[in-house]
């Protein structure tokens, strides 16, 4: 059996810097002709099952100003709670839904927007069901290592109340930082890097 006492060290992180768009979303800053489209810009095709939703919001720094150079990625299950992944062993995910999206915030307003579907519930390692949620990963100038968080749905109160991850949050007044406000099919999820409303970030 292999022994893991001599592990290699993970490559250390560095900030994505202000020009992350060049490598990740060149079309967004008007550089065409190399890639056919920005990778991750479209998550859903016509055949995708489930409720179409929009997730939108801003990322605020410690002075309350929106970041205008950040990049967000999301990763989530399909409507049946399956991941469109090589290592999904529970079934076959919806081929009409990628589960992964990437969007920059607007260079002027700082607002981001994802068009996706509402995810199904996914089991926690002990078998309990998690509430529907979307994983977020945020990089930007001034962020030395990408920040992981989760968005839960404001109209899923019952499921949120029994979610095993939310239950781990000791300071209950911080729970609302992970819950997006629902307005029909649009969910608003603002992220606060610091301050009274600092979002809960995870070491996963």
């Amino acid at each position, binding site marked *: 059996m292999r022994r893991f006492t001599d592990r290699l060290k993970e490559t250390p*992180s560095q900030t994505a810097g202000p*020009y992350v768009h060049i*490598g990740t979303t060149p079309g967004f*800053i008007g550089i065409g002709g*190399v*890639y056919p489209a920005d*990778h991750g810009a479209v998550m859903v095709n016509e055949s995708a099952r489930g409720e179409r939703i929009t997730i939108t919001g801003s990322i605020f720094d410690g002075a309350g100003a929106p970041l205008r150079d950040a990049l967000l990625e999301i990763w989530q299950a399909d409507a049946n709670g399956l991941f469109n992944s090589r290592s999904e062993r529970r079934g076959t995910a919806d081929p009409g839904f990628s589960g992964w999206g990437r969007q920059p915030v607007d260079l002027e307003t700082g607002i981001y927007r994802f068009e996706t579907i509402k995810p199904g519930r996914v089991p926690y390692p002990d078998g309990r069901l998690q509430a529907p949620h979307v994983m977020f990963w945020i990089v930007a100038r001034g962020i*030395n290592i990408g920040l992981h968080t989760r968005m839960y749905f404001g109209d899923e109160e019952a499921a949120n109340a029994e979610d095993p991850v939310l239950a781990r949050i000791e300071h209950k007044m911080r729970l609302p930082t992970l819950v997006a406000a629902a307005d029909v099919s649009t969910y608003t999820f603002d992220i606060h890097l610091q301050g009274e409303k*600092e979002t809960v970030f995870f070491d996963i």
Partner: protein
Amino acid sequence: MRNAPTETGPFWPRDLDWHPKALTPGYKTSVLRSPQKALLSLPNTLGEINGPLFGHNMIGEFDNDLLINFARPGETAIGERIIVHGYILDEHAKPVSNTLLEVWQPNAGGRYRHVKDGYAAAIDPNFGGFGRTLTDDDGYFAFRTIKPGPYPWPNNQNDWRPSHIHFSVFGPGFAQRLISQLYFEGDPHIALCPIVNTIKDPQAIDQLTAKLDMDNTIPMDARAYRFDIVLRGRRSTLFENRMEGN
């Protein structure tokens, strides 16, 4: 002995002392952009263990050749021609195959092709400054580019970035997601750079420093630099607690 499929196990925790801290006042922008509260540790769930799937059909023939992928037909980017190559491995030195590596950089003069970059150095009409590739079955990757120039940036009054290539790697699990920067052996700006110095351990900085690789240099054409990338590895799941019946 290993019955558990390795692609479905949870990851070793990140060594957060090896990575830069969130708050690094020498890099001033981090002051208002660093979370102040402790990260909440979570056991890996299926979402962190899994990651998005990208196929070879998304990669164009010249996506990993920055010398020509933006250039007019028959022309190439200006600058020192280099090849950057290596392996993407996990912490157990197991190759990470078919994973997406994306790179971006300024041109030979240190200027980015970006609406927000106003540095005086000229734009190279034949250089876009970005590329991508998927690792092969052995975790190997290679791209061809020009050596990026150093550039000044607003932090202290006279800070200059070392020559660097930004890179983004996926790995099969979302918890492995990583963005970092590649530096070049021998660059005196490495030791002076507040962004490099957000990393405390000199060995960790060395891990981001590509080494001149004369054995793979193409005579009369392009020098090679060797750079390996390590992503988080998975724990063995052999003797973990499992629910009855699983």
